[in-house]
């Protein structure tokens, strides 16, 4: 089947099997920045924002996402013009292997859009669906705190 999406602000039309997951369709169409960690919705590495809401893209059918707005990490900033969350993760040392990072940043973005000045408790709740095996989360939480301060100051 065919379906249209708005991915990172660009309208696209892709062909895919009716039972294909959004994760597969994104990866098959040039979005390897969306990572497959478990394929069962338990690790969060494939998270994207679907109409602004954080979802595990391995648990969503592409067919049910047609017409919707999809945001991957590539849509929030670039290596030449990174988003404050991306620079905060870099500066705090919150990135080791980086496999969880794109989804982790999107989870943080979803939080900061709703709650620009979250408490540590709120940050921990918001990121709990995203596993990281490298960092122990210490510097990830620091990164979200830093980004929150900078983004609020910017507003």
């Amino acid at each position, binding site marked *: 089947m065919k379906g249209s999406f708005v991915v990172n602000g660009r309208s696209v039309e892709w062909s895919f099997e009716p039972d294909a997951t959004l994760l597969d369709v994104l990866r098959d169409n040039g979005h390897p920045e969306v990572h497959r960690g478990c394929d069962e919705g338990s690790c969060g590495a494939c998270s994207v924002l679907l109409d602004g809401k954080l979802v595990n893209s391995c648990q969503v059918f592409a067919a049910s996402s047609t017409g919707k707005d999809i945001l991957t990490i590539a849509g929030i900033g670039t290596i030449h013009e990174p988003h404050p969350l991306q620079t905060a993760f870099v500066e705090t040392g919150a990135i080791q292997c980086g496999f969880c990072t794109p989804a982790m940043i999107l989870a943080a973005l979803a939080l900061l859009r709703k709650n620009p000045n979250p408490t540590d408790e709120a940050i*921990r709740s918001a990121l709990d669906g995203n596993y990281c*095996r490298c960092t122990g989360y210490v510097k990830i939480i620091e990164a979200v705190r830093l980004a929150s301060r900078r983004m609020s100051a910017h507003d």
Partner: protein
Amino acid sequence: MTDLNIVGKSLEKVDSLSLACGTARYASDCMIHDPLFLAFALSDTAHAELHSVDDSKAREVKGVVDVFHAFNTDSGLFSTAGQGFPEPSPYDTRLFNKRVRYVGEIVGAVLAESIEAAREGAAAIKLNYSELPPLFDPEKSMDADSPKLHGDSDAYAPLPVPYRPEENVAGEVLFSYGDLEKGFAAADFVVEESYRTHQASHCALEPHNASAYFDERGRLVLVVSTQVPFHSRRIVSRALGIPGHMIRVIKPRIGGGFGGKQEVLVELYAALAAWKHKRNVRAEMTRSQVFTSARTRHPMRVRIKTGIKRDGAITAMDMNDVMNSGAYGAHALTVLSNAASKVLPLFNKIENLNFTGRSVYTNLPVGGAYRGYGATQGYFPFNQHMDEISRRLGVDFLEFVKKHHIRVGETSAVFEAIGEGTEGVSQTIKSCKLDECIDRGAKEIRWQELRGKRVTNGPMVKGVGAAVAMQGSGIPQVDMASASMKMNDDGSFNLMVGATDIGTGSDTVLSQIAAETLNVPLEKIIPLSSDTDLTPFDVGAYASSTTYVSGRAVLLCAERVRDQILSVASAMTGTPVDQLSLGESRVVNRTTGEEVSFSQIACHSLYSKDQFQIQASASFTGTESPPPFAAQFAEVDVDTETGRVRVVKFVSVVDCGQAINPKLAEGQVDGAVLNGISFALSEQYLYNQKGAMTNSSFWDYKIYGTLDMPEMVTVVLDSNEPSGPYGAKSVSEIGINCPAPAIANAVYDAIGVRIYDLPLTPEKVLKAIRSRA
């Protein structure tokens, strides 16, 4: 050292912005044209003789191209352990074995036009077999009447090491000094206990995977999620009979390893299929397969018997380990060795010592390298045992440790006795700040206020516990690393290393060492790591070797480049080299102040006169393995009604020598700690009666998330190791050794109940509380 510009600074990790922006590429992101897909078929029986594999139904699945199994695919015996050559692990497996030895063993691989077809094909493979009696209990494996997993096979050890498959012994380590009997006779009392550590999965977020394609000359290119690219090429070549020169292994970004990717697994099958069909292939394990069919932390039973005098002297220690290697012997000898060689030297004043260790086969998933590599298995018993002894002596645990631990200028007979498949290497400790680790950590955890106080809050009782450890920095006289550098016309440098950055930050750390030596900003170093065509050799990311061993290679290489720079500058300016020094990105005449920039020097060497490229290479093999030291502390609340243990705060203080990049060093410890806590409290392999893992999913195998983490404090001390590059030792593994014993010691402090078996689940703690009452 106070005059450092780049080393010792928490500079941004060189690949981190690309990882944050999603431009970094992992093995499964590699763009390959029109690939075929591989899916694995797994054994559903723990122990059986295969008579045949019926692949007819699999071949009928639309899109299936080929099916590989033991009856159509031969390979020689080899080991999947990604170690040096010859490996200290036995050659006891083939690509597909006709005798299957655990539930989850790869018995078939289906190649198809789509992953769906490959999986459908894999599910349609039918195995015809006669079941054999399974062996699940490692402590019964050496019984005369136990099933022998490899007893009638032609498995062998390629090194002259103890290997007795006829007794299920996959590895053996024996060592002693002094006179044990005399030691025990001299003791005032004896403490003897058995402890058990359990099996665990690395849970790197990126599953094991490989992409295979052909270059324009028909060579096989493997892009692999690996910690050991050079070993990978060698082992693929050996197992499949593909000439080494026809294989190139590329390590892209890696989504975590922790030892799990020190194993040559998925790329074997990707290479097999690609080579036969001359088609591009993708192969990836599912998460469930990573749990069941990749590698695990070896479980270990450790019995320690110790003789002590009232003044605290340890007159004798007898340690007896049985390590469960699982169905194959990957790392069976060396993880066991490390349970002694990384643990016993810490208390180097034990008067008489005996160590007996055996790795044994069972029909369970295979053990392998896992961060800590035996030391984790050894320190859980060791620290609980010492906590118990200090309590019986009526002395503070921390004071007891200070009395016994190894110090600068001291050695241990264990260093020389136990190596990795060979004898070890004698060494004298040149840096050790364990006392400072202990004092700093005790303050941070409020040891004096909380220890022994059993503060209660309803059913909750608070306790604090501590544990100490050392590790190593590479395998001395075994691990080799090399580096090469060339200077570009703009005064920047390409740094090529075989060292394998798997997320650890080694590209950054090694670049910092090069930048420091050449006195250039970090961005002037362009690192490229781990491509068997483009970079020099390195054993890979294991044994806490990269900062120390690869770091020394980079340091040596950069010094050679620096000497060439100075000599060209000397020729350009007509000044003797001894009057020149390096300034930032330039050479300065100390007398006249005259300067030539690196760019001018590089251009001169490339274009002007007596042209040559300023470039060098260097190799390094350690002659010692200076241990980092750590003291770790847990504050726990034990719920006496449910048995649940909650870690409230966890403190780690580490002496890793000079941290090349303190923030990255802290990150290594933080990650190891949370993995260690999760290992101690919630992670476990559960099996049914047939030996099948019943919880091979993140839903049922619980690793810690953000809501589970305690308050974590990590302190990296100022320290300096004279033999290290700019004073550095290793830091990657040590942090995982002590969470389990520190928590167990804290549980005892809270409720007076000692848990000897990991993990400390609520069921186990509650049962212990009730049996005491």
